[in-house]
């Protein structure tokens, strides 16, 4: 029933996605290649009750993370109270000293958060990772839903599925809420960026201008958009899809060939909103992840609703002892890496590799976290005419205006390799739509 109706559209939807340019660019061996982001027709379905629980947990988590970023760049109360080890902040690559003492418009740092979760075989949800810099991926379930609705409209009439096409509206509100007066724009590094499809799609859907750095200029303490005719218009919010270091060559990485000189100086003065705020990396580091449950208690005085995957910090002696005693059953992650790189499953190591790794771990304990391997709940994907189980995660999107709002959908990513736990699109994974059911 549900599946049959969709199966016959699997090929046509993928063809349409290809035609719309739903692609993912990756750099491999120094070469830029665009590849299609394979779409699986079988949606992940989340019940209203389940989603309600996730929603409460995600709002709580993002509120606490936002408070944390604000605290770290202002009073540093959490360090003073020794709830968090300062070394993980100041030795981490995510902390940007330039942001110290800077207050962003409306005190919002994490405007758009992408929180990665997995569901275990025990049906419990676990947070895997917080992405507070430039989380990408919302456009994929948006366009896939749109195409599926065209193919099988009756499916969406018969099932009580939350419409996910409101993402653009949520994003527009998020930008408008912090806008300091003027246009809202989406800043893309250009068409060779891995997520260019998304930048252009979101611009089209929100009605924001899609701009590159060359279209923006700082004059007299304000940011302006210069259109093709040379006309200047003031910009009040920039949803920038370009990382902190390349944002402003007179304030960050000076060799950067892109960027807008002085944009950070006027941001510091409160004359423009940058979405997300620069410096957010301090809160989504794999080492900081360990402290998020403590942050929730510290800032909100609440018990965490959503759990972390059980995590150990070899930096602490007790944790190191546990890690060494239980090494073979753990997964180790390099805190400086992202995108599924720097992840080591201890049981896959040879004897020699294991010895080498332990030596490295002992000499640089701060560099790694260790986690219990979560036995993910497999989701079916449709392959060669039949459903087969694969590992999958869920990226939930939380958008913050006056209050955080959880988008009633999300990007479900799966591993195409039956033996792999790594679902990242940069490693060749695919995606599914995520259906949230309406409450009865």
């Amino acid at each position, binding site marked *: 029933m549900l599946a049959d109706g969709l199966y016959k559209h699997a090929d046509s939807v993928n063809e349409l996605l290809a035609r719309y340019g739903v692609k993912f660019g990756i750099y491999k061996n120094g070469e830029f290649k665009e590849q299609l982001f394979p779409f699986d027709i079988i949606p992940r379905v989340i019940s209203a009750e389940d989603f309600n629980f996730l929603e409460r947990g995600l709002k709580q988590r993002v509120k606490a993370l936002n408070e944390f970023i604000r605290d770290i760049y202002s009073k*540093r109360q959490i360090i003073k109270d020794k709830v968090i080890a300062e070394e993980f902040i*100041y030795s981490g690559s995510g902390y940007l*000293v330039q942001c*110290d003492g800077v207050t962003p418009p409306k005190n919002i740092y994490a405007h758009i958060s992408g929180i990665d979760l997995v569901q275990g075989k025990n049906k419990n949800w676990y947070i895997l990772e917080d992405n507070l810099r430039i989380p990408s991926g919302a456009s994929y379930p948006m366009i896939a839903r749109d195409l599926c609705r065209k193919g099988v409209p009756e499916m969406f009439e018969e099932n009580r599925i939350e419409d996910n096409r409101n993402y653009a509206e949520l994003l527009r509100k998020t930008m408008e809420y912090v806008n300091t007066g003027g246009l809202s724009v989406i800043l893309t590094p250009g068409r060779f960026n891995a997520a260019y499809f998304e930048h252009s799609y979101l611009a089209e859907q929100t009605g924001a201008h899609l701009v590159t750095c060359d279209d923006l200029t700082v004059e007299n303490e304000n940011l302006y958009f210069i259109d093709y005719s040379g006309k200047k218009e003031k910009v009040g919010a920039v949803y920038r899809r370009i990382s902190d270091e390349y944002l402003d060559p*007179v*304030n960050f990485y000076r060799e950067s060939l892109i960027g807008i000189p002085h944009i950070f*100086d006027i941001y510091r003065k409160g004359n423009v909103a940058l979405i997300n705020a620069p410096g957010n990396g301090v809160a989504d580091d794999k080492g900081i992840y360990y402290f998020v449950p403590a942050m929730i208690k510290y800032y909100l005085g609440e018990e965490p609703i959503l759990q972390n995957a059980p995590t150990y910090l070899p930096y602490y002696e007790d944790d190191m002892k546990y890690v060494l005693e239980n090494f073979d059953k753990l997964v180790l992650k390099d805190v400086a890496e992202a995108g599924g790189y720097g992840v080591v499953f201890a049981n896959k190591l040879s004897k020699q590799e294991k010895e080498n790794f332990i030596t490295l771990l002992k000499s640089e304990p701060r560099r790694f976290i260790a986690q219990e391997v979560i036995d993910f709940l497999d989701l079916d994907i449709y392959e060669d005419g039949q459903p087969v189980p694969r590992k999958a995660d869920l990226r939930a999107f939380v958008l913050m205006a006056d209050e955080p709002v959880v988008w009633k959908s999300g990007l479900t990513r799966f591993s195409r390799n039956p033996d792999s736990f790594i679902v990242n699109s940069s490693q060749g994974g695919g995606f599914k739509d995520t259906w949230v059911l309406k409450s009865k």
Partner: protein
Amino acid sequence: MIRRLQYLYHMSLKFELPVHEHHFKLRCFPSTDARQKIFNEHIEIYPVHFRSTEKDSFGNTCVYGTANQTHDHFSVDVEGEADIDINKKLTDEEYKTGIFKYETPLTKAGTTIRKFHLELESASLFANNFERAFYMMNMLYDDFSYVQGVTGISTTAEEAFDLRRGVCQDYAHILLAMCRLERIPCRYIAGMIPGEGATHAWTEIYNEGEWRMLDPTHNRECDDTYIKISSGRDAKDCSINQGVFYGGGRQTQEIKVKVSEL
């Protein structure tokens, strides 16, 4: 006792080919703090189309702006007077000093510094951070020679120590690298001292609630003739000019400093 000093700071850039759309961010203006009071300050920047002032995260005064018109020469002149009171302390609460405890790319101790550091006397023999840092400064001074032209602005502490030669920036970076191995909060200071020449660099060591200045190039604690321009984790945080422009080819920078007692 307050000492009054007069200072002149000049920086110029010459471009081989004309530049335009020149965006600059300058950090070469002494600021008033607990120890030094700046007055009668005069700043001249040429050419300039727009300029604005701000304090960076370390409290350093910055002037940023643009020079739109085509030019092959850019200059900054700063003059002013400083009253320095050596009895006034620069204080901070301990939890605010974390940023200065950990290595940066320029102050990372590699094998050479680590080896040297291991051979020092045990830290437990010293009463406090200041005495410990003072001792490390003495040891560094004995094993390092002031030589110009062998290191550059992006030379790391480890590279300079490998050469055992360098200038004030290198002395400061190496001392910071050693202090940070022991998690002693310490920072890099760019500034000026009496006489004519270039800018100088030294360090501040956090000791029992206050920052104390050590000048490893001269192997001494700083007195009231040192005018601070900026502070940060290392020389990069204190960079005098971060600019971008179109055109230019090769560029030559000239810096002249003059400090005299009034």
